């Protein structure tokens, strides 16, 4: 779902992957839900902004969904680190699972605008959760995998990478951290080594405070230390994440 908001001042330019914090209470002196929610911008210009609601079951997001038009909300942003597209853009492989596609949507747009060839590899649970090819710009090549095989090929996101080994110049992904090492290994099967900026991961771990203090959104690195998604991300360079 998408939330359209009108802001008081022209929107600060944002990069795909950056986010806004939204308090989901009707008054500043009410405290339930307590924590702000993270919403990713997916479009807008001037004083208009469109935000992706990636967790429709969440209490705070439900409150936003049920708001009547015209109600003021407390919005802070853009915050965090967004995607950094290579220049020239070349071949861009976008990997997305489930609702992460919403947050990646502007990345696809930005890559196309930069002259890239874009291939979207998308994994969903079933056909019901899959996006339709007609929703995508025509120049985007689309591959789909579903867990139950009701659409596309049956399998996970890696099932879709067959034959793409030497194709991408850059990989922009919204897949869980548990799959990041596997992706790094896949890249290094075909490339001499993973390099900075080559693969950028959008972390969708739940955030807490949104300022880097509570560490709820920390993503564990293979060597043990953590990266905080809200301030060091949510876009995390795979090279830096894995580096010892």
């Amino acid at each position: 779902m998408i939330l359209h908001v009108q802001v008081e001042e022209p929107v600060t330019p944002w990069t795909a992957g950056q986010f806004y914090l939204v308090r989901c209470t009707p008054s500043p002196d009410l405290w339930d839900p307590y924590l702000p929610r993270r919403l990713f911008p997916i479009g807008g210009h001037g004083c208009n902004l469109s935000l992706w609601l990636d967790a429709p079951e969440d209490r705070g997001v439900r409150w936003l969904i049920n708001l009547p038009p015209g109600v003021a909300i407390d919005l802070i942003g853009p915050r965090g680190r967004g995607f950094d597209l290579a220049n020239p853009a070349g071949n861009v492989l976008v990997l997305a699972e489930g609702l992460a596609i919403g947050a990646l949507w502007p990345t696809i747009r930005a890559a196309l605008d930069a002259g890239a060839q874009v291939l979207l590899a998308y994994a969903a649970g079933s056909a019901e959760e899959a996006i339709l090819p007609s929703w995508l710009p025509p120049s985007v090549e689309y591959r789909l995998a579903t867990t139950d095989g009701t659409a596309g090929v049956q399998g996970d996101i890696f099932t879709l990478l067959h034959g793409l080994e030497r194709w991408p110049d850059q990989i922009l992904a919204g897949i869980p951290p548990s799959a990041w090492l596997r992706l790094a290994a896949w890249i290094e099967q075909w490339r001499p080594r993973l390099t900075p900026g080559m693969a950028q991961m959008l972390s969708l771990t739940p955030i807490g405070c949104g300022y880097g203090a509570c560490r709820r959104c920390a993503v564990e690195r293979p060597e043990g230390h953590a990266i905080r998604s809200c301030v060091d991300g949510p876009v995390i360079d795979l090279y830096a994440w894995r580096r010892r």
Partner: protein
Amino acid sequence: MSARDRCVELAPHSKSGLLLESPVLLASGMIGYGDALPTDDLSFIGAWMTPPIGMRSHASGRPRRVVEIPGGIVWEESGPWVSFPGVLRRYAPLWDRLGRPVLARLWGPFDEQAEIAAQMTQIAPVAGIAVTPDEQLGADGAAELIRLVRRQAEKPLLVALPLASDTADWAIIAREAGADALIVGMPPLAQARDEDGSPVPGRLYGPAVWPLTMRALSAVSGLELDVPLVAAGGLHRPEDALEAFRLGASAVMIDTAIWVIPDLPERILRLWEDERNA
């Protein structure tokens, strides 16, 4: 209100004193090690407290669980995220730039806490040492820790008290053991279930804690211990701060409220100013 009018002395019996430019403090970990700022303007803050600092890090890699409950959170206690040497290397250079006094919160075995307290003497932005004895230590165990740290700490020593029925007893013991100021109190122990149904033991944060703080503050204030009191735990409204000052607190400490109302320190000071001018 001039900056001078806002000043508060939190360690009048200490050699170095702890003169702060504002009676509004930030609780442990609320701005991380100074690297997690909900607001760029810290001018309304008298001092801020670090997350626990121990000789070794305990939980650097994994996320710290936070469970949202109606009107607050249960925040898992995880121990130090970064070791003491790591804190000095990575964050201490930042503290000077922040320009606000640091209260270093200690963690770990008693002797290590004492050793860190001694070494903190050399760290200029650190204006005070904070000891937060765990409830399970009991008041006598807490007194032992406070005395040990007291002997090593040249800087003023703040001691956080549990919010419990015997907070006043802890206050007497902490004062006798050498506390320069008392923080009333620590967020209460709590437990909630996360989305997976796993129990998350931690501490409770949110406005519901404030009445507990008021009860404990009243009890400790009534003892007239001749030591400054800092009201902490659950403060979410400027009016809460005024209530704490009326009950005898010299300063107030904001915890997670700073995440949801970044301008709360400024609002407290404005209301305080209005009150004094009325």
